[in-house]
């Protein structure tokens, strides 16, 4: 059946089977592969997106249920050229290791700060109860959310780390190996 929804601010029109899960619609139909599927049983939270502004597990929502609604995925939270404060904080506070859970973790953390702009460590932990991480032991995730909350409250969420560490290689003329993805200062340190 035909559904219309708004994804990251853009209208999307999809022809879907009713049984298509929102997570699959985002990944396979709209190529928004930042939404990850981890457990596929509504436990791990890797597939978390915002639906009309609140966090949901997109593996447990049919795309047809989201018709007429607004979906925000990690791609709509921020991108490499303009990272969200939460993304910058996960980067600078080492809130990830393998990174698989990170996109869902960031979406949940954004929703948490919407409800509670100044959470205690306990409130961060309970606010992220629906997101599992098998690498970090959560310490640096809590630290990241705390840092993002502070940056957002202080209005200093645009710090210089983005300029120092370009994520994207230039679109044309790929750089010689080793450049672009790895920031220069780290290449020098490794040389």
């Amino acid at each position, binding site marked *: 059946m035909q559904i219309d929804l708004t994804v990251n601010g853009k209208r999307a029109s999809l022809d879907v089977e009713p*049984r298509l899960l929102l997570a699959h619609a985002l990944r396979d139909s709209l190529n928004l592969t930042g939404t990850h599927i981890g457990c596929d049983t509504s436990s791990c939270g890797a597939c978390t997106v915002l639906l009309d502004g609140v966090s949901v597990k997109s593996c447990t929502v049919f795309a047809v249920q989201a018709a007429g609604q607004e979906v925000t995925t990690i791609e709509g939270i921020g991108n490499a050229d303009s990272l969200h404060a939460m993304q910058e904080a996960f980067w600078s506070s080492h809130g990830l290791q393998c990174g698989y859970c990170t996109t869902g973790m960031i979406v949940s953390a954004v929703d948490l700060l919407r409800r509670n702009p100044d959470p205690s460590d306990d409130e961060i932990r309970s606010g992220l109860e629906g997101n599992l991480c098998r690498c970090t032991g959560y310490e640096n995730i809590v630290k990241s959310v705390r840092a993002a909350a502070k940056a957002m409250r202080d209005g200093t969420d645009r710090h210089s780390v983005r300029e120092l560490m370009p994520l994207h290689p230039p679109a044309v003329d790929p750089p010689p190996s080793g450049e672009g993805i790895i920031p220069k200062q780290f290449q020098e340190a490794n040389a």
Partner: protein
Amino acid sequence: MIPAAFEYKRANSVDEALRLLGEHGEDAKLLAGGHSLIPMMKLRLAAPAMLIDIAGIPNLDQIDAASDPLTIGALTKHAKLAASDELQKKAPALWDAANDLGDPQVRNRGTIGGASAHGDPSADYPAVLQALDATFTLAGKNGTRELKAAEFFRGMFETALGANELLTKISFAAAPKSAYVKFHHPASHYAVVGVAVALTIDGGAIESARVAITGVGDVAFRAAGVEAALKGVKTNDADGLAAACAGAASGVQARSDTFASASYRTAMADVFAARAVAQAAAR
């Protein structure tokens, strides 16, 4: 995991939902938040031919905490219950359960009506709503009928809701001295054992108690023995309260699974009953 194929329709009113249910009968299931039904469909434990999405029916997601009895629309999401200050004051057992259920994403999506109608033997609301002695309003094509929570929850995944009926609201008298305490399953957050208690207190002693337990047997049940034993016990007599909670699940066939044996569940029923009574008495 991909569920079996189904047809999907949205109902915009109770009447429309009932009409669609009438047309499709037992092949159809109502879909609200979907957080009980969709996981079962993904495992193909459920394969309805038709889903009737009732999430958009207006005015079924209201908390009326100013009225007596309090009334909760069936489509009220757990997150809305968890955020209600009025509910925290007037029926803290339900507020406890809503705050402790699943995780934030699940609470943003799941509804009290959907979770109740699912009849999961480890769900929280069946205990809470029995301790609150709640009344369920079921709409059918010949009008509505009302059932007490104890009649509504019948067995494992079995309720009194007919195939052509829709649960519209749940109401109960205020119970400011109530609490719900559970032993979480660490992964699913369902109750391994959950105990809901509603007390009235007179002169520092328990005047009446309703105690209901979920997670232990095939269906949540009232612990009549504990309710009787609690009468007259001073609320500051911790040993007396704990003694009254002994044998909370006696006579109930407890379930065993990989996480908790039947005897463990039975033992924990006493422990969590005592904790819930203490918490309710302290409110």
